[in-house]
């Protein structure tokens, strides 16, 4: 099962950048498209390993849910939490408009 390495287009890179919330420039799109094409060609090698019956590993150490006791304990103060915020108001994060004008 080799990956389809027909190459990655500039338009695809632009779409991915939008999904990842990166306002990349035209020059970056050109550069990334050609570089990612080379990188994808190299990493597509993972498709050479016949591995239908191989279970995937997402994590090297077997993990189960880890719980802590449901007890009150000190946490950061509101002031500490907001200290690094680009903008804060009335004890809250101040953010740009999230909803569109019509909403």
């Amino acid at each position, binding site marked *: *099962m*080799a*990956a*389809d390495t027909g190459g*990655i287009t500039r338009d*695809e*890179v632009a779409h*991915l*950048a*939008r*999904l*990842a*919330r*990166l*306002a*990349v*420039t035209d020059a*970056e799109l050109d*550069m*990334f498209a050609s*570089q*990612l094409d*080379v*990188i*994808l060609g*190299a*990493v*597509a*090698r*993972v*498709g*050479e*390993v016949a*591995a239908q019956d*191989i*279970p*995937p*590993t*997402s*994590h*090297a*150490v077997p*993990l189960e849910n*880890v719980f*802590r006791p449901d007890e009150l304990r000190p946490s*950061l103060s509101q002031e*500490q*939490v907001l*200290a*690094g*915020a*680009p*903008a804060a108001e009335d004890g809250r*994060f101040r*953010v*740009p*408009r*999230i909803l*569109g004008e019509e909403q």
Partner: protein
Amino acid sequence: MSPEVSLELTRLTAAELAQKIHTREVSAVEVCHAHLDRIAAVDGQVHAFLHVAREAALESAALVDDSLAVGTPPASPLAGVPLALKDVFTTIDMPTTAGSKILEGWRPPYDATVASRLRAAGITILGKTNMDEFAMGSSTEHSAFGPTHNPWDLTRVPGGSGGGSAAALAAFEAPLAIGTDTGGSIRQPAAFTGTVGVKPTYGGVSRYGLIACASSLDQAGPCARTVLDAAMLHEVIAGHDPLDSTSIDVPVPSVVAAAREGARGDLSGMRVGIVRELSGEGYQPGVRASFEQAVAQLEKLGAELVEVSCPHFEYGLAAYYLIMPSEVSSNLARFDAMRYGLRVDGARSAEDVMAATREAGFGAEVKRRIILGTYALSSGYYEAYYGQAQKVRTLISRDFAAAFTHADVLVSPATPTTAFPIGDKVDDPLAMYLNDLATIPTNLAGTAALSVPSGLAASDDSPNGLPVGLQIMAPALGEAVMYRVAAAYEASRPTTTAPEILS
């Protein structure tokens, strides 16, 4: 204190410094001053540090001296010894940038567990060291704040991502440092700078407050100029942390005792596996020669050499460069310009502000990996890329398990080449990725490995030679045997002459 005495203090090992401080032959403050003076003298050329915490370091050292003065036993075997901390750990009293403009000037509201353990141990944190942005890179050239220079040859890279920590050790700016290793970011810089760097078992050292690159691979570890110093630091930082749910709840391996035993130089009965797939093509001739000498040396110490095959290691690089960017694309979503860090205002909506901020705040390598990871995780490509990579990860773990039935430790060169010139690979991402060829399998399997200096290798463009590292790999939680072999090897060969250009 005369400048000569001050310089001499910076040449001592952490174990020697601790002994002198604890017997009150020198004060922790004098030791701290000596290293701050050294930083002031050479860091303009090396650029190992992004932030020097002069006042905080002197205060911390003074507390150690005060406590010793009233007869209190030292808080740890390393109390009073200075250390350089990679700028990827949050510190409440110092800025934390992860080498990125998006976090420039950020003051974290809490300490990473590694930082709080260092403080509790009385270790003096001198400052924060340079790194590739968000630990993505193998040269420290991807730092938003300019590259670090290799103290062995200032025109060359110190490796990465933890080039600042490794260079600080090689330039005698600190006897101890902390790094993080996602695909080789501790071991490769150690090899390039002639220092010791250890990637512990995944889960061995807490990741709480460690700014994430790829969470299933990231592991913090000790860096030093000697194996014993690294072992002493290992015991300070390792151990279960309830604040990190991936932290392993088992006793810390007795690595200091193992290093001391190893230094006696007897490896009889130790089975050392040479990984066929990590010792052939693709390695610089000088690196191969150094490796062959190291293997012969291990045999002289009594080790039994066995050849092992790990047939899937050759797919490690490909699997890694799918898994790591996938996790990166998810982890770095948190830099959204809303709660902390940079915000580029002016756009109309939150979404536009986010995109403009991430564009301005992230460097090219970070953007590349975010886009690559977004691609690998997208529907239609997920199975062929991320899914297959996860299966390769299983196969690599199985390769390790099989190899460790024949050998107690595995060895390979830590890197394919010695340190390369600054600017050589920065525009060729794939060439840069190849640096991690030998180190990546360990991260994928979650096992332990270290790099210990194995002398110098000359090449056409570096006739005087540059440092080479021997990689020693051990099973998960097998750190003790790894330190024992490394210490035996270290004790059996002449100390590599320190870089003279800065002395």
